[in-house]
């Protein structure tokens, strides 16, 4: 599983959901968590983190947000020289098949449907770790 020092970026235009995700991560032992309210702010945070030599290591993003959606942020990351392989989890209230396919095509690491339980979140995170790191081992 991810190291406990792993740096997470949690993105959602609703603070309630950011709080829930942070709390879930904290209960799993992950406290190195930064937040953003939308994709635009998130990308700025990610760029600054690189400049600060403390890059984001896992992104957990809502899909439906103003200014820049989670999907658009994902596409931006996949086109970014530094973040093209960053583990990226989309969290959304909508799980229509065409949406899931669109996310997969864009290179999403995993997809969590709201509402979710802490156990479901942990399972998804474990799957992401296995996909990104165990494969390379």
């Amino acid at each position, binding site marked *: 599983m991810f190291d406990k020092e792993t740096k997470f970026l949690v993105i959602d235009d609703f603070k*309630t959901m950011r709080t829930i995700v942070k709390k879930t991560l904290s209960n799993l032992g992950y406290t190195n968590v930064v937040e953003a309210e939308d994709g635009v702010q998130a990308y700025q945070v990610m760029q600054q983190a690189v400049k600060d030599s403390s890059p984001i290591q896992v992104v957990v993003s809502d899909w439906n947000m103003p200014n820049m959606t989670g999907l658009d942020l994902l596409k931006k990351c996949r086109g970014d020289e530094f973040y093209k392989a960053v583990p990226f989890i989309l969290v959304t209230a*909508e*799980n229509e098949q065409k949406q899931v396919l669109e996310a997969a095509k864009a290179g999403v690491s995993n997809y969590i449907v*709201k*509402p979710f339980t802490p156990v479901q979140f942990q399972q998804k995170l474990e799957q992401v770790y296995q996909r990104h790191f165990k494969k390379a081992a």
Partner: protein
Amino acid sequence: MSAAPKQKPNSFFDPSVGQAFIASVEKTLESYTGIKPIREGHKLFQGIPTDFEYYGIMNFELAGQKAYMILALKKDSLKFIYERMVGALPDENSGESDDCVGELTNITYGNAKAELSKQGFSMSMALPTVLRQLDPSKYNIQASLMLPFKQQDQFHLALYLAI
């Protein structure tokens, strides 16, 4: 051999539409509070509710019909739900209560949309609006279906589907 597709309902008030929204409210509340809400029947209204304290509103289109989904809660119910979701009481002055209503509305709509999509409907993605008071004159609503939910006096809320 795949099953024949379900017949599309003829109107916005077809039972399958209401059922999708009801199931979504139940799933959302049970997941976040650990308590399954009990629906207390339904009621047809002319107009929209004005006796709640928080309103999460989605403005969308379904089967060619422009409609609203309104999640209406009393303050005590919201506090109860928020505490169960987040582990602390909301700070109303910093907008945490409104934020929570927005997210509950977002999830309720999204889950219903996903279910109805499986039944062949196309519904728009939408962002919720949260209000403390509703001014009926601002909404051209002819009728609404009220779906109240309750659980042992711990929370009362209502879902309105309006056209």
